[in-house]
């Protein structure tokens, strides 16, 4: 074979190699590997009975176990053991969530009593007691049925209606879940109860402010009227954007009317309060500063309440520390004041409080007492909520 022919065959074979072998490999790497991939079709949901829908759609059920032991400096011990649950159900139409229902209850066994912050009513409930805590309904955007689409759009979230037993709408308690915690805010000491029966409206005023406006029975745990006229309460608070963008929450609260005293006698009550909470990220976690200040009158006596709290939560959310100073002063009755320290180890610590599991050690040093000498109360708490 002539050399030219051999060269031609060699070139031809090389070209063939490039086309069949080497060249196509280079071409494959440039080929779009996602060519021809189509999005999957959405499967049709299986039909369900109304019962299945009721107990699965927006239905929540949680269980709670709390075991608490405490002692004072004289060695007087007390125990509070409970199991409980919470049911939450939201009701919706095809295009909107229109209402929700919440019920929290506990069966509690108490033996002995020390005035621990989260159980001030325990003194009168020795032995077995079945207790309800939250029991209320919310109805959202209640004017929607009579509004046009344009008016609905302008008033989203503005007119919501609440009725039932919930946190007193004064201070930060409305926006703070203190159901399982040992540390509490100031309402319990300020009014004699932290939850009350009430009805009224809540929602957004504008982009910057929210409102809560209610009529309260003023009777605390039991819904009863013993001659009191009840209380009117108004709270104006910062909109959520301040919490999201700057870590700030806060508000101004007004409350006035008549409530029942511990002895079930009507007391003329006036309060005005200011509160604030600030979350600040630090390199290893989060610092939270909380303050509640309020003043007013119980009948003719001037009262003044203050609460200052500092919390640290490690970025792992596994452990935290907290300290609180609280003082309630009333004309002619001196004051109740305490400083509290707390350490907590979390097994579970969901950001939205949907599943919680912890052990807390809480030490309260009473600095002043209206009745009796100041003491120290040490509390060990185990808490499970899921």
């Amino acid at each position, binding site marked *: 074979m002539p050399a030219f022919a051999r060269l031609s065959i060699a070139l031809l074979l090389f070209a063939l190699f490039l086309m069949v072998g080497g060249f196509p490999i280079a071409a494959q790497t440039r080929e779009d590997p996602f060519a021809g991939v189509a999005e999957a079709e959405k499967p049709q949901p299986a039909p369900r009975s109304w019962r299945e829908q009721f107990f699965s759609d927006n239905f929540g059920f949680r269980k709670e176990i709390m075991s608490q032991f405490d002692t004072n400096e004289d060695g007087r011990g007390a125990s509070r053991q409970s199991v409980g649950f919470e049911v939450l159900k939201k009701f919706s139409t*095809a295009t909107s969530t229109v209402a929700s229902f919440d019920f929290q209850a506990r069966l509690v066994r108490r033996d002995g009593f020390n005035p621990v912050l989260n159980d001030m009513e325990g003194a009168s409930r020795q032995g077995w007691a079945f207790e309800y805590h939250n029991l209320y309904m919310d109805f959202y955007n209640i004017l929607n049925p009579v509004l046009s*689409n344009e008016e609905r759009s302008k008033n989203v*979230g503005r007119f919501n209606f609440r009725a039932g037993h919930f946190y007193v709408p004064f201070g930060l308690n409305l926006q703070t879940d203190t159901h399982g915690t040992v540390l509490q805010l100031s309402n319990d000491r300020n009014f004699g109860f932290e939850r009350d029966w009430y009805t009224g409206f809540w929602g957004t005023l504008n982009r910057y402010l929210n409102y809560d406006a209610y009529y309260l029975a003023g009777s605390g745990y039991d819904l009863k009227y013993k001659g009191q006229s009840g209380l009117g309460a108004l709270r104006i608070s910062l909109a959520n954007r301040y*919490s999201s963008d700057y870590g700030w929450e806060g508000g101004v609260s007004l409350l006035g009317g008549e409530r029942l005293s511990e002895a079930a006698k009507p007391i003329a009550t006036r309060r005005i309060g200011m509160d604030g909470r600030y979350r600040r990220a630090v390199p290893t976690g989060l610092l939270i500063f909380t303050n509640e200040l309020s003043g007013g009158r119980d009948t003719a006596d001037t009262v003044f309440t203050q609460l200052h709290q500092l919390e640290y939560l490690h*970025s792992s959310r596994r452990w935290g520390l907290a300290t609180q100073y609280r003082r309630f002063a009333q004309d002619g009755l001196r004051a109740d004041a305490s400083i509290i320290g707390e350490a907590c180890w979390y097994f579970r610590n969901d950001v939205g409080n949907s599943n919680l599991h912890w052990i807390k050690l809480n030490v309260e040093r009473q600095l002043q007492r209206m009745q009796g000498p100041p003491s120290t109360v040490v509390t060990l708490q185990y808490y499970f909520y*899921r």
Partner: protein
Amino acid sequence: MKPVIAFLALAALAGPQAVYGAIGCTLTNPAEDLKYLYPEMTTFKEELSELPRLQDGAAIFKGLKARLGSDLDPIYETYETPYTVYSVFKGPTKIGVVHGVNVPGKGGVIQVFLSLDPVRAEIKSFFFQRLESPAARQLRSKEFRAQFTGLTLGDFYKHDYYAAVEPGAKADKVAAVKPPPLLDAGGRPDYEASLRGIRKNLILLDFFVYGKRFEPYFDRARQSMEKAKARKE
């Protein structure tokens, strides 16, 4: 005697069994936030999703980890964490889907919310409800957040392939996202956590709302990466 029986009944309830959540990863004030995202909206609807209550919840949780490509944090990202999906309407028409997730950041929680087109499943906007980070200011910047508009979960799955096999490919939309200009090295972990949060949010929405629409992209990316790995070997 009655309280004792009631106590035992409640104690039995508290035993190990399926557990249900009451509060999801929610917007603190949904009406306010949704109105800001969709000024034309008239109503919204909340739908709570809890993996333990779903028939294929365990598979979804396992699948979430596989699609995320990293372990789930035992405190921030548990199987029991409930999720709330907000559907936004203008009259009878669904105009948006909003959903939030928590991811662990360097300083604490990073709560990443996305609003999506209900039909195309593309990101309309993304924002942080809680951002416990020293780099919060940089990460909240409009310019940084705007880069995610129009991305889908499919783009994130494609990114897995391109990043591993064809770095710098023009088709890799996720690689085109740039960190905020003033972000220092200390803020980098929270930037990475934010990206992870966006991806996690899109994966869960694909499961809860879009009927696993982007699964073919996940499968193809995985197959293509395996092929490329085999060719190399």
